[in-house]
């Protein structure tokens, strides 16, 4: 169900719908009990939207992002992201999807400790078998933009938290994905670095071609949101 706030957007939806979930559920089956991650989610998101996904810890934000990023599959319902059926697609298809369609930013950065900044950024481009030179060029541009040029040859262990997160953002953008997902991207940062990161996100969505979903339990992203979702106990809440 679409939050009905803008008629124009509803009209556009038919053409530019990028994420569509129907009765989407993710139940974790444990030895002793079933844990509800998400339950019965209906959701349509169109291209260019900046979605802020809110909710208390444990409400299912990460679970939803993992499904959209194709890191996990639904246990029930349907989920289609950028034309890819996450539930039924083959593993190959999902890999291609992850390469081409999404970029992911994590709370704890998840840089590869054995690659330097430049290599970390270039990695998705290389994995996607893109031309080495163009990847390099793009990485240089991103480094410049993020103010990391002087850090290109440093290893993650030598960076500050803010620098690590900026590196991670560059990595998410290297393949120019249609969707950028961020799970508590400022959760491990101080307020100054948090602000820098949010400014960067704002720049990313500037031209309106990318769809951004930020999951956070704080208010830090509220000002850039074009759409707000609230999760509680795995279900979408309507306010």
């Amino acid at each position: 169900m679409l939050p009905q706030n803008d008629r124009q957007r509803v009209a556009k939806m038919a053409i530019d719908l990028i994420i569509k979930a129907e009765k989407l559920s993710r139940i974790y089956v444990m030895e002793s009990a079933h844990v509800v991650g998400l339950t019965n989610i209906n959701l349509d998101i169109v291209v260019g939207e900046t979605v802020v996904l809110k909710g208390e810890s444990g409400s299912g934000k990460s679970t939803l992002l993992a499904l959209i990023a194709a890191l996990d599959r639904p246990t029930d319902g349907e989920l289609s992201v950028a034309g890819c059926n996450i539930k039924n697609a083959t593993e190959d298809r999902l890999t291609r999807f992850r390469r081409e369609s999404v970029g992911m930013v994590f709370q704890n950065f998840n840089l590869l400790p054995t690659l330097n900044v430049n290599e970390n950024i270039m990695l998705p481009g290389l994995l996607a078998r893109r031309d080495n030179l163009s990847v390099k060029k793009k990485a240089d541009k991103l480094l410049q933009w993020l103010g990391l040029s002087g850090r290109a040859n440093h290893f993650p262990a030598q960076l500050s938290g803010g620098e690590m997160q900026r590196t991670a953002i560059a990595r998410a953008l290297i393949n120019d994905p249609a969707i950028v997902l961020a799970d508590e991207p400022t959760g491990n940062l101080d307020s100054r670095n948090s602000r820098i990161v949010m400014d960067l996100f704002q720049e990313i969505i500037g031209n309106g071609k990318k769809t951004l979903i930020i999951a956070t339990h704080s208010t830090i992203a509220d000002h850039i949101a074009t759409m707000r979702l609230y999760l509680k106990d795995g279900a979408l809440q309507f306010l």
Partner: protein
Amino acid sequence: MTLFRSTNFFFGLFFRFSIRHMAKFPGRALVVLLGISLGAAVFTSVRLSIHASLNSFNQSMEMITGIADRVVTRPGGRVPETLVGPLLKLPYVKSASPFLYTYVQPAMTGKSPFLLIGFDPILDRPFRKWQLQNSTLSDQGIWLDLMRFPYSIFAGQPLLDDLGIKPQDGLTLEHVGQSAGFIVLEALSSEGLALVEGGRVAITDIATFQEFTHIWGEVDRIDLLLDSTVSENQINQIHKMLPEGITLGMPNEDQLSGQRMISAYQLNLSVLSFVSLFVGMFLVYSLVALNAASRRKELAILRSTGASAKLIFFIFIAEGGFFGLVGWLIAIPISSVFAKYLLQGVGETISTLFVRVSVDNLTLSAWEIFVSLGMTMFISVLAAFQPAREAMKVFPKEAMDIGQPVATHRKSSRYLAITGVLFILMVWPLSSIPPPENFPFPGYLATFVLFLGFSMLSSWSLEMVAKITEPALLYLGKEPAWLAGRYVHSSGMRTAVSVGALITAVALFSALVIMVHSFRRTVELWANQTVAGDIFIRSKMADINRYKDPVSQNAMVFFNNLDEPVDIDIYRRLFLNYGKNLYQFEALKWDVYLRYGSFFWTEGNIKTGLQRLKNGEGVLVSEVFANRTGLGVGNLFQTSIRGTWFELPIIGVVRDYRTQGGVVYYSLEHYQDKTGDLNWGGVRVFFKDREKIPDEAVFQMRNRIIECCGDSVNVTLGTQLREAILKIFDETFAITTILLLIALVVAALGITSTLTVLVLERSRELNTILAVGGSYGQIRAMIFWEAFLMVLTGEFLGILCGIALSYLLVFVINKQSFGWTFLYGMDLKTLAVSYPLIIFTALAAAIPAIRMVFKQPPANLLRER
């Protein structure tokens, strides 16, 4: 009380913190325990089996020696029995007992020979302990029956069981040319003399013995019991009253020289089996290091809640100790299985190589158990030391850190590599330190330092290999290979350790393959050139009775009157001691022998040497003799043989692989002139026409010899003898091969566990790669390439280390522990086949790790740790 409380607390914490953690990942702990227990089992069972041999040897020797203070012997011959009377007349000689022994063959039973001892039961009473099963010794009537009834014996129960007879039964015994019927009077109860050779022993009266063996008026030795107040002077008086060539010596000389040889072998096999333990050490290291590194956060929390750095240190030391102790406990049942197989093999090897031992069961020794437990614990605790130190350095503040787990900071690999190179450079000077008295310690130390040095190179070499191969990797394996290279380049100690284990195993493998090949090739050459002869003749059981019984009269007559197209080399062989070293003195007909056989000279001038040897101007000695005694070309060979003093220059040193000590060769004609000993030890027959030696003629000749004197001599064809030599060789190295295979298995376990651990530990990283667009295939390929780089580095360094080690084995360790060296030769064929095989095996060991990828679902990336 407080001590109890604090140890109680410590083990409580250790259990909750370490054991529970291990229980969470039982697979890893099990692999490590399996590895360490295999190592410990090999080590323990090898030590125990040799110990059993040593024990049985010592027991036999002690029981035979009895409590004598001195023994009268005649090197290379026997002592006249008439000396007993005059010796007993000396006031300070309390008792004297003439003693004879030989191996005899139970006729027509197919059973192996056993030891027959002959003495005077009355005179011998004070010397040796023995009892009869069904009567006490005060019951004089029975044991004096031995003197009363000719051809009667008392026998050990195991011997009777083996032969399937009981007291009052008769049996026929053979000795050289004689055979006679005996009656078993009574069984010996198992103590004293009856323990000799595990009970395969019988005693008889001296008169019976002499009559049966045709040794009239002579005995092997006379044992003496002296007054406790006997003076130096009085002992010299005994010396003086003994005829020329008869010596007064300490009773345990043979035992000591035998012990020394067995001990050298024990050390040799111990070191070889220790390698498995050493490789197991890498396993313990990698798991304890993993526990320390992956639980940094927990350690920081422990520290911040009040645990001291020392406590953390001891918790990880205790992890090492835990692996040692439990591994050792698991090793006990495994060793008892191994030992069962090793016991026989080791006993037989010692019997053929050094001295006759007979073992049938393991003897548990507190010392051996202590050594094996101690070694296993030491190795495991040592392995835990470095990770424990790292863990100790975790700051309490780290508990507050969040986010990116820090890559294990790189140890300065270059610094380590330089230390490694320094170690490797030390190997040569270390190995050239002269060993203290047959104890090849410098050689083993050099080996250890070599392994250590190469292991230290592994971290830096991995970096280098990854760096150098980077372009090739990118070209060959695309992104996965490139990623693998990047990982291996900066992964630090973790990968380096498993590469170290691989280096050790590959090195050992290469070195042993090279050594065994060199050894075998040399022995083959030696067997073909030096063990020359078409037919060999010697007295029956000459080997086991150490050539004490000369070739019979009728055989001598036969060969003296032979008019065939053959040459006859007659030789006399005596088993003697030179100082503390057992050796064989062989006098032979140089002119005949040299026409057909030849030696490998390692020292001396062969051109002039041969003529001088023929002229009786000196002796030729084997490498073993030279190395054991420290004598070389130009030194004098000085000793008394059968009452004649020999003082001869050593003309040359030659390779010789005859077992049971070194050899000294001398001219038979000159030996006979000097000593008047005209007996023959054996005969070598050569067919004159070397071009084609008709098989038929050889067989005919053999048959003729058997017809004439087959009852007293053994006839062996040259081809058979040479085959037998190579067979003994191969059997000896069967044990080595088994030990080697186990070390390789442990190394493979090491690779499996390290790679698996590396995968598990990096599940977050691997999932990240997946999240940013890597496919499962790419990630599996990456792990494969990581394994490949590690295996490549390990094998490369392992081969280098192995070549260095093979030099040590061939030219230092064999020389120091056995006295021989061999022609160095690479077994290129075997190596060319096995290296790819090792690569494949090592890569196969990576399969569990590759399959383990993504046991953790990728969505876990989004969960906080």
